């Protein structure tokens, strides 16, 4: 590969470039095969964020793939540095007058070209993989703005046509509130969702920027005031949900938790009916459901008429969403 210029004299049995390269290559190859298998098969299934939802599972798979691809890159540099340190050192305190120079290699076209082609191809395939995963999973659980273009089946911008279960997550300093517009716009402090149901999280904020992060569901969407940030998710396992705020929002940011439950569809129907009944008097005091809420000039309440979007959804009668099989 590299020009085999005779090394400085006095070195016993200097190896050729090819011999050095093949030694490095073999060590690297063996280590890479072993470690990539370990990362993919042994570590991968245990990687965060787990498998509680379709999105979490997708993110876990992406983490696994990226870690597997990264393994040989890291190993190449480590193996190479170790090889250099072991083989090509002279005493650190060699007096300047006794220093001898190494070979004057200024470059190697083949090596440079190979390096660039490999890094370029890796970068491009990472990009294609990432984009594919992002589009396939309808945004991979991330906030995709007011008008997402990668959407799951059943989604419609028109609220009356929308077949997903809509849950609005409202951030404010320093708590989360959840509204269910298809159930009279009731408010809860706990996120309860049915398993196996595609859900539209509409995330907004009443004051500063927060970020809605359902850690084990793989949902993360910033909550900006005046913005309806939509993320899609489908939980698959019945169990608890951990929600934290992932954007610094002031003094009690560290304590901005919420909890929730993924329940079966029947349990969800039971729960929401009970909630609606229990709070039927309180609901009349709530502002009508809107994509986001802006404070009125008197600072008192939230005025949905300030909503500049066409066809604000408004309060919807209590109908259950069409459950996507």
């Amino acid at each position, binding site marked *: 590969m590299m020009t085999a210029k005779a090394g400085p004299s006095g070195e016993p049995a200097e190896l050729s470039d090819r011999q050095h390269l093949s030694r490095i290559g073999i060590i690297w190859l063996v280590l890479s095969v072993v470690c990539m298998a370990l990362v993919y098969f042994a570590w991968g299934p245990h990687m965060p964020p787990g498998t509680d939802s379709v999105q979490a599972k997708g993110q876990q798979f992406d983490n696994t793939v990226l870690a597997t691809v990264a393994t040989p890159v890291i190993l190449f540099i480590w193996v190479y540095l170790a090889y250099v340190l072991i083989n090509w050192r002279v005493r650190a305190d060699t007096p300047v007058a006794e220093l001898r120079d190494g070979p004057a290699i200024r470059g190697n076209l083949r090596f440079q070209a190979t390096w660039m082609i490999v890094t370029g191809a890796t970068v491009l395939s990472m990009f294609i993989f990432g984009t594919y995963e992002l589009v396939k999973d309808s945004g*991979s659980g991330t906030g995709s703005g007011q008008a997402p273009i990668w959407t799951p089946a059943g989604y419609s911008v028109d609220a009356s046509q929308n077949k997903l279960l809509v849950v609005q997550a409202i951030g404010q300093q320093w708590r989360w509130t959840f509204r269910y517009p298809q159930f009279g716009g009731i408010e809860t402090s706990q996120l309860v969702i049915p398993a196996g149901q595609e859900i539209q999280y509409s995330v907004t904020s009443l004051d500063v920027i927060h970020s809605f992060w359902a850690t084990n569901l793989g949902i993360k969407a910033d909550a900006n005031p005046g913005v309806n940030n939509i993320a899609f998710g489908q939980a698959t396992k019945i169990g608890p949900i951990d929600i934290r705020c992932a954007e610094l929002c002031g*003094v009690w940011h560290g304590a901005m938790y919420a909890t929730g439950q993924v329940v079966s569809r029947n349990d969800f129907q039971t729960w929401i009916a009970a909630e609606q009944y229990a709070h039927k008097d309180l609901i009349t005091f709530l502002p009508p459901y809107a994509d986001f809420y802006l404070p009125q000039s008197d600072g008192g309440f939230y005025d949905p008429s300030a909503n500049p979007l066409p066809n604000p959804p408004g309060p919807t009668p209590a109908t259950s969403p069409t459950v996507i099989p």
Partner: protein
Amino acid sequence: MATDISVPASLDHGTPGPGSAAGRNPWWRSGNIAYGLVGAVIGYSIGHFLGNWIASGYQQVQGSGQNDLALVLGYLVATLGWLAGLGALNYPLQKLVGIQVTSEESEDIEHRKLGAYFKYTLDHKVVGVQYLFGMLAYFIMAGLFALVIRSELLSATRHLLAPDKYLEVVGEHGTMMMMMMTSAILGPFGNYFVPLMIGARRMAYPRLEALSFWITPAAFVVLLSGLLVGGFPTGWTGYAPLSVEATMGQDAYLVAFGLMGISMIIGGFNIIATVVNYRAPGMTWMRLPLFVWAMFVTSLLMALAAPILVGGTYMTLMDRTVQTALFDVNHGGSSYLWQDLYWFFGHPEVYILALPGFGIALELLPVFARKPAFAYRTAVAGMVGVGMLSFFVWQHHLFASGMNSDMRPVIMLTTEMISFPTGIIYLTAIGTLWRARLRMTVPMLFIIGMLFNFLIGGISGVFLSDVPTDAVAHGTFFVMAHFHYTIMGGYMFAFFAGIYYWLPKMTGHQLSQRLGKWHFWVLFIAFNSTFLPLFAIGELGMPRRVFEYQRALQGLNDWVSISAYVIGIGILIFVYNFVKTVVIDPRTPLAADTWGSRGLEWFTSTPPVATNFVHIPEVVSGPYEYGSDAGPMAVLDAGATELRPGATVHEGN
């Protein structure tokens, strides 16, 4: 090409030469730090008075009892007073009103008095040393804040600090590190060595250079003073609706960051102009040392990105003081605006904090491998490529924000493309190490450590550039571990490599190599032990900047905190080594040619004479021609004895 090499040593044209008594200013006009402090106090009073006079009747001020305008004007006029007291305004004001300009600055430099280091001086070597001490002080202060943070996080639920105090400390640590440390390498080593490495006698704009340094203590004090007025709750990113409603400490953050932005802009322009115009004869662009290339690209980033920051802080200050509504969604503003402005500056900024590290690594590798830099031209292209791409990736900080979400694949592509030019840095490094005759001196230990750390930092960045994996990592300790690996593991390690490598040239004293090895190993092991677990902590569900977390993560957090204390011990070893060598016991013999480098900065006496070179050298070959028969890098003009690389130079002075 290289022009204006024959400028006289005196920095002002047509004035009496240095040392001439005729050029002395009257005592009351030669500035110093004491006058600066007095000026700052007077300035603060004036500004505060003005602010009260203007705004005390505002409804907002009367309602909240806090007059942000008074504080902001206080800070700004105090900074002006500080600069005036230092004498920074004498020359421009004298020029402005047509008074004969006198030159008092050169005298102390010529005789290298200690006092010169405490004044507004125009010698880039003095400014470099001032920067070195300043940056070390800021760095250690910010590091102490980090230890307070880690102490708070020792327990998941029991607290050392109140939550607001905790956030204040987090904000001070982050902001101090990210804004002051932008100049940690460019300030000391860029200012000191760029002219020496290109064979120039001086900087293009020595006054701007000096100004860029003397703004930093003002920014530092303003930032720190935020603690006195309630601190700021936004962390170093200062996201907008929160920053507009925050207490008065936020003004300190905004003014300090804005001042530092100005320092970056003018410091950057100075280096750009110097590299373009002041190269010695024969110093072609393709013979520029890679460190100079890194400084050049960094300066371009500073000059182009920092104005956005200054604009952003200005807008937020307007929102806070005179009730504009740039970030208020109710009145036509947007909460996304600051995020965009901030990261449009912020992402180039993280390369301002990476490129100088690459520069030092690529500069030192040939010296200690005793080989030419591998693929020199490709390395230059790589650094320029990193710089250019850094302007096209900022929205990867906003993948979950809902803004511009259909553009995410494009941003994903540009972000991942950055690993291409960054990979070239590694290509040059490993090519240079091939068949090297490697001396693992202390600077080289730090460079190898840096290559190790930055690799992990870069690879973890891929997880943040990919939207589905960023969905987990965004806003968590994973991000924090990632940028500490790139900036602390890369930039800080290179900074220390630079100190061990260049301090003999700057002061004539060499740091203890034995202590240096201790410093390296303690720091390297403790650094990795601190930040590697943080990747896991973030992925397991701990957001950044929280004071409470899941009990299950307490074991890992305790491990991290204890490792962080060990980092502190590593830094203490360095401080002891540095103070002992430079201040207490500077007996180590002068080493004119410590490392056997071919670099042009070693072609002059140690420490360099005031004019850098008695005779401007003529550059005849590249800086890294080890092992070839290229001969020395430069020759002196007629009459001077030819220099061999590494020869001790005796200048006739």
